[in-house]
C-alpha cells in the first residue's frame, strides 16, 4: 500500500470519528433556530463526550461481559465501515475492495445487533422495550435496504458504491433515471428512520416514541459516551453514503493525493450542511407519526424501493 493511500485511509477514519459529533451539534443548533431558541453550542456533543468519558461507569446487577463489550464492538464496526465506503474520496481506498453495498449493510446490521444484545443483557424492562421496538421496525426497514441494493446494482451492473458514485456524477441521464430517483427517495426515507429523525422518532419525546435512545437507558459513564458516539458516527456515515452515492455524487476531487482528500473533507461537510438544512426543514414541517403508523411509513419506503426496480424493468436501462 502506498504511503499516500495510508494517510488518506487514516484521514477518512479521523473525519468520521472527529466530525460526527460536530454534525450532530450543527443539527441540534439548526433545529433550535427553527424553534426560536438559541440552542446549545455546535460543540456541545464534544463537551458531552468529554463529560461521559470522565464519569464512573455503573453496571446493572446481573449484567454480563456482553454489556461492556458490545458498545466497543459496535464502535469498532462503525470505524471499519468508515474506511470502506466513499466518504472523502471518489476512488476506492485500500480496504474498500473488501466490502460492497451488501457488506456495508451487514456491518451496519452487526453494530445494531450487538447494541441490541447489550440492551437485552442489562435485564431492564425499559431497554428491552427499546430493543423490541427497534427490532420490530427494523424487520420492515431491512427488506427496503436489500431492495435498494438491488436497484443500485441494476443501475451500475455492480454492487460497488464507488462505481455508482462515478457513474452518477458523470452521467446526467443515469442520475435523472426514474430508477435512481425512486431509489434515492426510498433511501432518504430509510435514512430518516435509521438516524431517528421526524416523522419516525423525536429525541425530545423520551417516553413514547423512544427507539434508539431506549436501548441506552442502563448504560452510564464511558460506555454511554461510546454508545452516543456510535449514534453520531452512524448518522455521519449514513448521511455521507446518501450524499456521495445517491443524492449529490458530484464535487469531489479525483486526484489521489492527501491535499485532494483534505479538500474533499470540506466538500463533504458543505454537502452535509445542505442536508442538515433539508432535515431541519422536514422536522419543522412534519409531525411525529404514531408508533404503530411507523409501519405505514416503512411500507411507503419499501413500495418506492420496489417501484425503483420495477421502473428499471418497465423503462429499461438509463
Amino acid at each position, binding site marked *: 500500500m502506498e504511503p499516500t493511500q495510508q494517510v488518506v485511509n487514516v484521514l477518512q477514519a479521523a473525519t468520521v470519528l472527529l466530525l460526527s459529533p460536530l454534525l450532530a451539534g450543527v443539527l441540534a443548533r439548526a433545529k433550535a433556530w427553527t424553534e426560536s431558541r438559541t440552542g446549545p453550542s455546535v460543540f456541545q456533543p464534544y463537551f458531552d463526550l468529554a463529560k461521559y468519558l470522565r464519569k464512573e461507569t455503573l453496571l446493572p446487577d446481573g449484567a454480563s461481559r456482553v454489556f461492556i463489550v458490545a458498545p466497543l464492538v459496535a464502535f469498532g464496526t462503525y470505524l471499519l465501515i468508515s474506511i470502506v465506503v466513499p466518504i472523502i474520496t471518489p476512488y476506492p481506498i485500500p480496504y474498500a475492495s473488501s466490502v460492497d453495498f451488501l457488506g456495508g449493510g451487514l456491518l451496519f446490521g452487526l453494530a445494531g445487533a450487538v447494541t441490541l444484545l447489550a440492551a437485552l443483557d442489562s435485564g431492564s424492562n425499559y431497554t428491552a422495550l427499546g430493543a423490541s421496538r427497534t427490532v420490530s421496525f427494523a424487520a420492515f426497514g431491512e427488506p427496503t435496504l436489500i431492495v435498494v441494493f438491488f436497484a443500485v446494482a441494476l443501475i451500475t451492473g455492480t454492487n460497488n458504491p464507488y462505481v455508482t458514485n462515478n457513474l452518477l456524477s458523470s452521467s446526467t*441521464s443515469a442520475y*435523472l*433515471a*426514474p430508477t435512481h*430517483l*425512486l431509489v434515492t427517495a426510498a433511501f432518504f426515507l430509510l435514512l430518516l428512520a435509521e438516524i431517528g429523525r421526524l416523522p419516525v422518532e423525536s429525541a425530545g419525546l423520551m417516553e413514547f416514541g423512544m427507539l434508539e435512545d431506549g436501548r441506552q437507558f442502563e448504560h452510564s459513564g464511558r460506555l454511554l459516551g461510546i454508545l452516543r458516539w456510535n449514534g453520531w458516527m452512524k448518522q455521519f456515515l449514513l448521511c455521507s453514503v446518501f450524499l456521495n452515492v445517491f443524492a449529490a455524487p458530484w464535487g469531489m476531487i479525483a486526484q489521489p493525493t492527501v491535499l485532494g482528500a483534505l479538500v474533499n473533507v470540506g466538500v463533504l461537510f458543505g454537502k452535509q450542511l445542505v442536508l442538515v438544512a433539508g432535515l431541519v426543514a422536514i422536522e419543522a414541517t412534519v409531525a411525529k407519526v404514531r408508533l404503530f*403508523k411507523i*409501519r*405505514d411509513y416503512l*411500507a*411507503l419506503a*419499501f*413500495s418506492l424501493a*420496489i*417501484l425503483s426496480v*420495477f*421502473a428499471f*424493468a*418497465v*423503462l*429499461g*436501462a*438509463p
Partner: protein
Amino acid sequence: MDLSAEVLALIGVGVLLTSLFLQSESFVDPLIDGIALQSLLLGVLLGWLAWTEHSVDLAFLAGLTVVVRAIVIPYVLRRQIRAFRWRIREVHAANRVTGHALAAVAAAIVAWFVFQQTLATVFPQTGGALPFILLVQGLLMLATRSNTLVQVMGYLEEENAIVYAGALFASGFPLFVEVVVFLDVLGVVLVGVILSIQRDVTGSPEEVVLEELSG
C-alpha cells in the same frame, strides 16, 4: 435513452407514483388533490408530446386535460365533499394503508407481467406498459373502495389510463375520439354525483339489508 424518452419516462413514473398515493390514501380531500395532480401530469405529458411532434391536436388535448380533469372535475368533487362532510373519509380505511400500498405495487407488477406476455410486441415503446398498469390501478381502486366519490376517482384513473395510452400509441389519433372520452368522464361524474344525492335523499333498500346483515 434520448431526452424525449427520458422526459416521458419521468412523467410516466410520476403518474405511477400518484396512483400509488391514491391507493394508500383514505381521506377523500387528498384523493381529489391526487387525481388532479395525476391529470396535470398527464396534461404536461401531452404538452411535451405536442411540443416534440409539433401537433396542434395534442396541444389542444393537453389544454383540455388540464382544464377539465385537473380543475373542473376536482372542483365538482370538492363541492360534493363540502355538501356531505361524512364522505370526507372512507369508513374503516384507517388501518389499511400498508396493505393498500403493497397491494398497489403487487397489482402493478402483475399488470406489467401480463402486458409483457400479451401486448409488449404490439406496443414496443419505452414505458408502454405504464398506461396498462394505470388501468389496473384504477380497477383495483374501484374494487377495493366502497365510497361512491372514491369509486368515481377510480374510474377517472381508468380514463386517464385510456388518454395516456392514446397519447403514447395512437399519435395523430382523431381528436373527436379523445373529446368523447372527456364527455364520457364528465357524464360519469355528473351521474355519480346525482345518484349519490338521490340515495342520500331517498335512502337505499340495499342499505337496510346490509345493516341487518352486519350484526
